[in-house]
């Protein structure tokens, strides 16, 4: 993975394997984000309560959640469309935040599943842990997002 600043945006170069994994993750997410099962901690993290009180939260959720879900869907659809084109990915300056939000949604979902506690990039995981691939994926997503954030316009 290589991130470089260009005029008016960012160039993102992904290895073929990286692109495949990200594509798969995005496609999984686009299915997952349609879930309204708020008892799932990952769904609850993506669509958090806005108030401490249940009644106010439910009321707020009723009118804000469909639009929020649509926004998350749009961001991931945009990333999906970028990944579908071969070669270097060019992200315009005004579209960088779509990438940041979309990658963040993946990190929130994966991080909640892995129950990460503190280390920003996932920390050291024993190799024989069956979830070690998911941890390294989580770390890689953090690295990608951090690299995009380092570019200043």
């Amino acid at each position, binding site marked *: 993975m290589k991130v470089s600043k260009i005029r008016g945006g960012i160039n993102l170069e992904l290895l073929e394997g990286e692109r495949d994994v990200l594509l798969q993750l995005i496609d999984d997410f686009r299915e997952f984000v349609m879930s309204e099962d708020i008892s799932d901690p990952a769904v609850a993290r993506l669509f958090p309560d806005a108030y*401490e009180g249940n009644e106010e939260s439910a009321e707020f959720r009723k009118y804000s959640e469909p639009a929020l879900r649509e926004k998350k869907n749009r961001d991931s659809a945009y990333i999906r469309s970028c990944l579908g084109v071969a070669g270097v990915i060019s992200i315009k300056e005004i579209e960088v935040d779509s990438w*940041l*939000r979309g990658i963040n949604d993946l990190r929130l979902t994966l991080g909640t599943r892995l129950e990460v506690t503190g280390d920003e990039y996932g920390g050291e995981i024993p190799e024989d842990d069956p979830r070690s691939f998911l941890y390294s994926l989580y770390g890689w997503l953090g690295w990608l*997002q*951090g690299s995009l954030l380092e570019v200043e316009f």
Partner: protein
Amino acid sequence: MGSTSTIVAEPEVDLQNALARPWNIIVWNDPINLMTYVTRVFMMVFGYSKEKSERLMMEVHSDGKSLVASGAREAMEQAVTQLHEYGLWATLEQAS
């Protein structure tokens, strides 16, 4: 002889909620969001300077939460929705 002063309505100031108790936005610490990301979100959503955004981010990080904005309920609800779009853990409460 008393002093005189005049007041002129400013169109950008919304007087409708001037006397109501304001609503506060609280952002809570979470172990997933990158610190540089949280700073960026405060700059984008509230238009805060990098310095102010970093200060608020550090407050979230070290104190577990931070009051990041205060104002009329509708405007604060819109801002919370934007924070949720970015994936921050944000809630609203009425100022005491």
